[in-house]
């Protein structure tokens, strides 16, 4: 089938073009981390100064670590809680289910600025206060709806007969979930986790309201820097993060299968 071949070739080309579109700003960001001008001025002048000064910038580095830590913990918690909730919403029928599903949208729909302010006031009022713990509390809550929506979308493609079959073979609920359901929805869980990480790692507004001096996250540092002291050190640290995560991801893709292939 020659047409199929051509169509598939075009498809591959298309995906490649989409990746180029997605990575265009990232490549520019990385290039500018090697440019001498702090204002992205051209012509390009090669330098590694920003990497050197990044090394000296303890505040930026510690904020980066905080962000990574919070993002990883957020991802784990929200994936576990979110997947559990999606399973419940998928399996059981009860009054108020529609309401629970609708309740996933306020955290996404209300601008984070309002949610952040609300959290600040509420946490202050009930004594949770600010700090890394409060930030984590907020991030998980923001990431949960994304995980639930994404995992639920995958669950809708799941045939309940598979669970039934496993059950009739004597498997209990846990075994059914672990052996049958989870492997099927794994691509959704992974995608949900990736979103959760992105939501937390790039979360500025909520972190901003809930951070305390000395306990900030990377986006908070970046946004505070924009007003006066923006330097391409920020590009440098972002570039390092992207390169390292890309290496980790490609490694993961090399050794694990989670795309849902049978």
């Amino acid at each position, binding site marked *: 089938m020659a047409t199929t071949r051509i169509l598939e070739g075009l498809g591959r080309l298309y995906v490649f073009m989409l990746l180029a579109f997605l990575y265009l700003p990232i490549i520019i960001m990385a290039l500018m981390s090697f440019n001498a001008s702090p204002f992205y001025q051209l012509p390009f002048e090669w330098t590694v100064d920003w990497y050197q000064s990044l090394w000296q910038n303890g505040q930026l580095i510690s904020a980066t670590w905080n962000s990574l830590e919070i993002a990883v913990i957020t991802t784990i918690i929200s994936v576990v809680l979110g997947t559990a909730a999606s399973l419940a919403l998928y399996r059981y029928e009860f009054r108020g289910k529609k309401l629970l599903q609708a309740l996933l949208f306020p955290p996404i729909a209300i601008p984070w600025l309002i949610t952040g302010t609300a959290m600040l006031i509420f946490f202050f009022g009930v004594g949770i206060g600010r700090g890394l713990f409060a930030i984590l509390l907020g991030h998980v809550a923001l990431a949960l709806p994304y995980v639930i929506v994404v995992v639920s979308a995958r669950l809708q493609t799941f045939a309940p007969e598979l669970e039934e079959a496993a059950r009739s073979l004597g498997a209990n609920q846990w075994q059914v979930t672990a052996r049958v359901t989870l492997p099927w929805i794994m691509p959704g869980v992974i995608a949900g986790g990736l979103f959760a990480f992105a939501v937390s790692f790039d979360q500025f507004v909520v972190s901003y309201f809930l951070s*305390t001096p000395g306990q900030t996250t990377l986006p908070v540092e970046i946004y505070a820097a*924009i007003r006066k002291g923006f330097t391409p050190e920020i590009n440098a640290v972002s570039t390092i993060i992207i390169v390292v995560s890309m290496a980790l991801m490609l490694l993961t893709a090399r050794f694990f299968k989670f795309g849902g292939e049978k």
Partner: protein
Amino acid sequence: MRMPDLTALLTATAVFTSAFAFTAQAGEVHVLNWKGYGADEPWAVEAFEKATGNKVINDFFNSEQEMLTKIRTNPGLYDVVMINAAFNDQAMAEKLIQPIDTSKLPNYADISKDKAGSPMLDHDGKVYGVPWVWGLTALAINEKSFDKAPTSIAEMWDPAHKGRVVIRDDAVEAVQFGAIATGQNINDIKDMDAVKTKLTSLMPQIKTFWSSENDWNQMVASNQIDIGTYWSGSADRAKTHFKLPVSLVIPQEGAVAWLDAFSIPVGSKNVGGAEAFINYMIDPKFYVEWVTKVGAPVSANTKAVEALPEDAFNRKVMGDPEVAKRIQFQAPITDAQREVYLALWQQLKVDVK
């Protein structure tokens, strides 16, 4: 060069001796300020910590409203807060800041009289804010677009600059700028319709609304703009520090001036440390270093300004008595006024969409 060196040395000794008086109350000083605005310079923090034994912990805000919220929701956390003089009144009325014992600040005596006595900072004979630096919101130009620097604010309306004009996305500043363009007092705008008409005709000229120094510098570095409103200290820094083709223009019609001051929040756990820090911030030695290394607005301390070289921008241009006559200092604005300004500004932005 001799004289400033000598003064610097003398003041350095002075700050050290005065600083030693405070070492007794060593502890942490929590400072709330804009980021990259003097108080968080690593060399300054280090020098202050070395001299007084206090540890400085900086926290930042991105708007005055946010600064007020942070003090409201964190009683007892901050020891020093930088408040624009126009907001001092509100902070005092809400009982967020406490009177300052200026006898504990040796450098306070050198603050220029008109600023130290400002009714915006002193209430009932008590000082609620120590004047730190002041500056202007004036015009700045891209030198590449002009053979000769303009002198009038009207340049912003020149069709030759259509689509290459910028203005800050700030309702109060925009309205006050409109007041200057229509020859009115910025603190007592009588003819609001004239301001509106004037700004309406400016909107089609505008490329974008800037919100940070970085925005401005990026746009001028890529030659996307000709002229726009800008802060005096930032224009000077762009030119001298970043070598960008920027010069400040203080138009003949005038400019908006602002005064930044330090206050001590109610509930500060280290008032001694706070006093030492504020004293250090208004010290000439710190100021000269700040101007040289980073670029800064004009100090409220007359001795600090005199310690700058004769031809320094902050001394020559900003200290010019002719300039002093033209500029208008921002007075406090009520919430109701602010909302009227915002409504006007939002309407203008929607109409030009």
